[in-house]
């Protein structure tokens, strides 16, 4: 019985690790694509109108900050599952 419990515990730990890894990986997909879109379009805008580069850069950082938050929440979940 104790053996079974220990095994179940081990399995739970393993599942936690798998979930943490998968969770972070999945959470990073969307923001990765999103930041690519944001920066790519910002570069296009800057190349077309170099005089508006300052404003575009500020807005780009804002866009990156909003997009990146999702990936960071995924990272926090990873830390919590693995270590907390």
């Amino acid at each position, binding site marked *: 019985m104790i053996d079974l419990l220990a095994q179940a515990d081990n399995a739970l730990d393993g599942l936690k690790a798998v979930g943490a890894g998968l969770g972070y990986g999945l959470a990073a997909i969307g923001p990765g694509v999103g930041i690519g879109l944001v920066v790519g379009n910002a570069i296009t805008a800057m190349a077309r109108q170099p005089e508006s580069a*300052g*404003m575009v850069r*500020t807005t780009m*950082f*804002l866009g*990156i*900050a*909003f997009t*990146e*938050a999702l990936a*960071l*929440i995924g*990272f*926090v979940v990873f*830390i919590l599952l693995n*270590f907390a």
Partner: protein
Amino acid sequence: MNSLLAAGDGGGLHFPAIESLLEWPGFLFEGNTFLELNKVGLIYLWAMVAPLVIFTLAIRKSSLVPRGIQTVAESSVDFVRENIVMQTMGPDGMKFMPFLLSLFFFIFFANITEVIPFIQFPANSRMAAPAFLAILVWVVFNAVGIKSQGFFSYFKNTIIPPGVPGALLPLVAVIEFVSTFLVRPFSLAVRLFANMLAGHLLLVTFAVLCENLWAKNILVSIIWAPFIVLIGLTGFEILVAFLQAFIFTILTAVYIGGALHPEH
């Protein structure tokens, strides 16, 4: 590869427990709940004192043509004014300049200890101060909104964006309410905290790899990839420390600006 990674004592690669990377014992006033000071608290004190010292020195020896430390102070004030206040709030946001500047410097100096040798710990990778700063920003932008627009019209302007069709209004109002009053402070705090924590763990990972290779053979550790990556990442983390201070400040400015001028 495995034999290469095995440490000198033959024990394999040991990654330190995360508690030993983040939790520091107190060394002053131990046992006193309010006064106990540890490394994190010391870094926050430094982040508070360093800007004070810089600006005091800059003011005391000020001249028309800036030299030395006055250049640093003036160009940083100019940076915050041109890139943060003017871009997001315009000229009437200038009265928030002292708040935004102190926020920027406090966060930057608490972050930059991440790459300073022998300190190497970003104080913002503990949740307490980012959470406190986010709550402070939440209070400030709500107070500014209520003061400049009045209580009810501030809430009306915030949760009901202009030009929404009537059928969608309940849904949009709920989404706007949650995103403005709950998600904003949460994401502000988590963004700063998680970025610094991730950077710290990344640097520790590569430093542990280097150290294990060093124990094996000093030549391997110098020519092998982790050392080069570690140097590159240190440069990257300087950028991140600056960028996170910038992003936190500019988001604060955007929130205050949004509360100051409602959308039409």
